[in-house]
């Protein structure tokens, strides 16, 4: 491939940021200084091309350092990795955390998503707009979809480019705090919130998944090991890989990422493939609005994920695993890096793990602000250095996944159940919960409740019981609706609190558990406006690949804006807009390529049909 670049050159900072990641260029062929001997040798570009999967990390390096990706930096990334500039640009412009036009070093992403809207983000934004003008990269503040810190709504993420870049989550935040973060920098405004803030139950007896959160130092391998850490791995390595899969099967572990697919079935079919290498991908992209359970684990007990991945890797015969971590989780990144390093240094990861002969490596890949990359095939494209567009299935991940090889994708919470199964055995595990939903489950409770946070309960408790754990709706207000499963889930009514929060229980009541979101709205919340926000989310997060979703999400938003501004003025027009929504919704559900488009109408449909949100107008 003959690459052609424009004349734009990188600045010294940009060059250094990329070099630190991938090493200094050893030849003019890869973007380094052109030496005399370069005129007499040539390379096929193969060795550099095989590093295409570093493009997202390289763009992060530049964006972190200078705050945006200039034409010169883009050229340099392309040269160093042998990727055409149009391709690098197509990747860079896919992600919301990157900017391809100049912007200030400091930028604050203010969450305007549903949990934050229920807790006053609109006011925060109105104040900011008055002071700074409309949101845009240039103005230094942007609207953001759910930042995964809903327990601290209204929330924001403040970033300052530099070496190193500084990133801080703010929440509950105010416009004053955001302005300060822009004026004096995020580091001066706030320190990192304690991880236990997300877990009101921290330190309680009887927790299985959250047992160590708040009880051990998340940076200390010694603490982890002292609290039964890596005992699940020791047990697993005593068994044959197939036996580990069998245990997980007997435990009836279902995926916690949203689709509730049996983990052992994925593992078994992947392990049965002849093609190697096989890969394990941990889906830590957690971007479903209202979801923050994975973050609670990553920040409170990061070693447990490493332990889980080594066991899963062993079971399926993988030699490498990737953690695809959402870009807005800076502290998880730091803790995971530490956990990987320490585990490797002490023989729990890397070559010949604990003398078993089994070797396994883990790499972290950071997302950069794209909900769609949590889709199980989009995640492959993103890791490989392409736009995060879902692939069409078949082929399925177990046949041809990451780099075209057999791959298992599992959610963080799914995986951390595995060491537990190894520790207590599949029989004891399967006795927890109900017959079809076994084990403990994490729920992300947020919105208008007294104590928002991640709660661990055995499967089987009802919606009302989970809300009660979180202290119920705030004094003096009454519950208006609950959103289950996030923006891709569905609303239920306040008289349905007896819904059992199990996979089968929600299914039989025609709703969903999704990713474990329980988002409560009291009667102070304007639900039609929440519906517009949900529509806006899907319109922003659609990858744009297929027509029903790319255009359908736009038409859905337009119709909902019309309905919500019109209110009861013109019932006939509203009825015809609802018909339009149904038409568009059905086409999205039937004909979109992936789950995003297929689910983009679910929540709105349930709000209309189940809760009667737009009823007065029909």
């Amino acid at each position: 491939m003959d690459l052609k670049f424009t004349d734009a050159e990188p600045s010294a900072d940009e060059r250094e940021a990329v070099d630190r990641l991938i090493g200094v260029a050893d030849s003019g062929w890869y973007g380094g200084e052109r030496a005399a001997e370069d005129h007499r040798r040539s390379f096929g570009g193969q060795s550099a091309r095989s590093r295409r999967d570093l493009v997202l990390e390289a763009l992060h390096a530049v964006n972190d350092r200078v705050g945006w990706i200039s034409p010169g930096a883009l050229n340099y990334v392309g040269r160093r990795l042998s990727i055409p500039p149009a391709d690098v640009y197509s990747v860079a412009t896919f992600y919301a955390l990157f900017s391809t036009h100049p912007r200030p070093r400091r930028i604050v992403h203010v969450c305007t998503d549903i949990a934050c809207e229920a807790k006053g983000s609109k006011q925060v934004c109105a104040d900011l707009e008055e002071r700074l003008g409309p949101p845009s990269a240039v103005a230094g503040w942007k609207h953001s979809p759910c930042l995964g810190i809903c327990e601290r709504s209204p929330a924001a993420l403040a970033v300052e480019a530099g070496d190193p870049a500084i990133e801080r989550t703010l929440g509950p935040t105010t416009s004053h705090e955001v302005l300060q973060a822009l004026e004096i920098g995020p580091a001066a405004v706030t320190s990192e919130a304690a991880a236990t803030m997300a877990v009101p139950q921290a330190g309680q007896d009887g927790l299985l998944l959250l047992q160590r959160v708040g009880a051990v130092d998340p940076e200390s391998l010694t603490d982890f090991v002292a609290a039964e850490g890596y005992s699940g791995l020791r047990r697993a390595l005593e068994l044959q890989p197939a036996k580990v899969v069998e245990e997980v099967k007997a435990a009836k572990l279902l995926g916690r990422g949203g689709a509730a697919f049996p983990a052992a079935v994925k593992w078994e079919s992947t392990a049965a493939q002849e093609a190697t290498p096989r890969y394990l991908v941990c889906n830590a992209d957690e971007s479903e609005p209202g979801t923050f359970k994975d973050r609670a684990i990553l920040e409170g007990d990061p070693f447990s994920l490493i332990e889980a991945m080594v066991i899963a890797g062993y079971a399926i015969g993988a030699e490498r695993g990737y953690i695809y971590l959402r870009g807005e989780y800076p502290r998880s990144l730091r803790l995971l890096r530490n956990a990987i390093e320490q585990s490797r240094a002490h023989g729990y990861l890397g070559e010949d793990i604990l003398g078993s002969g089994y070797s396994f490596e883990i790499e972290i890949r950071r997302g950069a602000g794209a909900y769609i990359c949590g889709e199980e095939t989009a995640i492959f494209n993103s890791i490989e250095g392409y736009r995060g567009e879902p692939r069409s299935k078949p082929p399925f991940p177990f046949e041809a996944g990451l780099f075209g090889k057999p791959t298992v994708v599992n959610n963080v919470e799914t995986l951390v159940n595995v060491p537990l199964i190894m520790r207590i055995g599949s029989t004891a595990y399967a006795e927890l919960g109900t017959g079809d939903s076994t084990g403990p489950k994490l729920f992300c409770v947020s919105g208008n409740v007294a104590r928002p946070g991640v709660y661990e309960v055995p499967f089987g408790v009802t919606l009302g019981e989970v809300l009660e754990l979180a202290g119920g709706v705030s004094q003096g207000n009454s519950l208006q609706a609950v959103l289950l499963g996030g923006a891709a889930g569905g609303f239920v009514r306040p008289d349905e609190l007896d819904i059992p929060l199990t996979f089968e229980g929600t299914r039989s009541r025609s709703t969903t558990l999704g990713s474990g979101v329980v988002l409560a709205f009291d009667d102070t919340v304007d639900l039609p406006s929440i519906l517009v926000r949900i529509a806006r989310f899907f319109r922003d997060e659609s990858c744009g690949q297929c027509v029903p979703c790319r255009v359908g999400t736009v038409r859905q938003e337009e119709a909902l804006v019309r309905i919500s501004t019109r209110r009861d003025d013109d019932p006939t027009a509203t009825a015809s807009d609802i018909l339009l929504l149904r038409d568009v919704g059905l086409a999205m559900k039937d004909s979109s390529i992936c789950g995003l488009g297929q689910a983009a109408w679910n929540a709105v449909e349930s709000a209309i049909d189940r809760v009667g949100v737009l009823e007065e107008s029909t």
Partner: protein
Amino acid sequence: MTTTDNRAPVHMGMPTRLVTVSVDEREVSVPEGSTILAACDAAGEDTPTLCYGDTLTPKNACRVCMVEVEGSRVLVPSCSRRVQEGMEVKTDTERVRHSRRLVLEMLGSSVDLSTTPRVADWMVRYAADPERFGPPAGEQFDRDVHEPGEHHLPDGSTAATMEQPVKVDNDLYVRDYSKCILCYKCVDACGEQWQNTFAIQVAGRGFDSQISTEFSVELPDSACVYCGNCVEVCPTGALSFKSEFDMRDAGTWDEERQTETTTVCTFCGVGCNLTLHVQDNEIVKVSSPHDHSVGHGNLCIKGRFGFQHVQSREDRKRRND
């Protein structure tokens, strides 16, 4: 890797097995590995397609060819899904008609389809009404600026569209992305499927996506080598010869008056076939037969655009002096 033995007998390939499927309750047999689309063709069904290209790997992005397959939760893209023995395909159910209608309405409301062949017929067939989403929002001038994840909240009074200024930045071909349905065919033709030049890609995300060079630099500054293979595969006329664009602009483009003559390119010895489109004794554009074994519809800049000398006749030369 296997080594090739020159003395080994020529491999004729396995005889292909036939697979029998039912299309709208009619049994048809097609070779194993065929697409549902091929089975529909065999059954005499006329399936609308837009992003499907006979020389390209299906991207199945437009979703206008959807069919119902027994046992599948969602509809299935016929252009890319392979047949399986005993498959039951339905091409005209309520669900299929609904989806096809909606996809046509969504495209018709957001893209200028005035030069997309056949689409007007399909609109009639499926009773599509693109205007139901409201009046078009009008031309946008910032579609080349990408801020993914952030858009201006609409007020619902108009329907957002792709409408934007035409890109005329060279003498050979024009990019009118108001007509682009984002089918990815030009990207695939320019990239690894044919040309290996990688001058263009999809930039941005969602509805704000756009076919683009890096930082949307003009084509002469990009990697483009003007092979025109993207123009060849574009299903909507978003990419067109400058000659065609100018004639349409002047109102003189008239396909009824055009003849097509296929010949061999004389520029080099590769042997690509060209089809010369001639109107009033002037070559107005050049295409290339997709079923030709040498080029599969692809050409280089010389074969595609190097036809001016053919018509630099004396009278014309004089006129231009």
